[in-house]
């Protein structure tokens, strides 16, 4: 059911040492990837709590991507 013009708002929780650095290196090497993810950097994926994710959905994000 792909909707035309639907631009999902996705919240990303990225670990500072892993996924955030991977995103950075992907950017430096000029890989193309969709710009829908809004990133929140955390110092470790273990910092993320059930509440953060529920709150993200409550605030209307269409998806939450947790990257460790």
């Amino acid at each position: 059911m792909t909707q035309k013009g639907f631009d999902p708002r996705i919240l990303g929780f990225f670990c500072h040492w892993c996924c955030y650095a991977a995103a950075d290196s992907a950017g430096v090497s000029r890989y193309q990837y969709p710009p829908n993810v809004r990133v929140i950097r955390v110092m470790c994926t273990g910092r993320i709590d059930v509440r953060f994710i529920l709150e993200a959905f409550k605030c209307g994000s269409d998806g939450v991507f947790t990257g460790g």
Partner: protein
Amino acid sequence: MAETCRQVLNGAGVNSDRLALEWASAAEGPRFVELITGYVNRIKALGPLGEGPSEAGEHLERRLDAAVKAAESLKVRTVYGNLAKKFHKAGDYSPEAISAGVREKIYPAFRREMLTQEIISCVSEKPCTLDELAEFAGASAEELEKITAALGKKGILKEDGRGWFLAR
């Protein structure tokens, strides 16, 4: 944590496929690009929040609000901590054990807290009968009866001929 989130999201009427937990090391730029692209396409296929099949639609914000409040509650936190201790003791961290533990321990506590929040938000507007509450919270009257009785005992709610209302 992820399993708790999935079960709670399903219970609140959100497709749990909307939550992704993936790993990419600092050296894996290309893998990260693959993961993100795949994930964004998956969300595009699901459509906006609340509009996918089996999603709660108009009630969603209220349900999620109740879920956030339940996640803060001391009761749920205690159950969560106790379960973590139990896993540590048994040394069994297999996905099946975690899924079963969450289903049996955390989810019921979470659901109870969520329904409590929904009942309080419903009766704070006007007195409600048990059937009205059941329709509002999307649960059975029997399930709610126990919770309203417990709230009545604590002196938070009162009951009269018109139904339950907030005690002040």
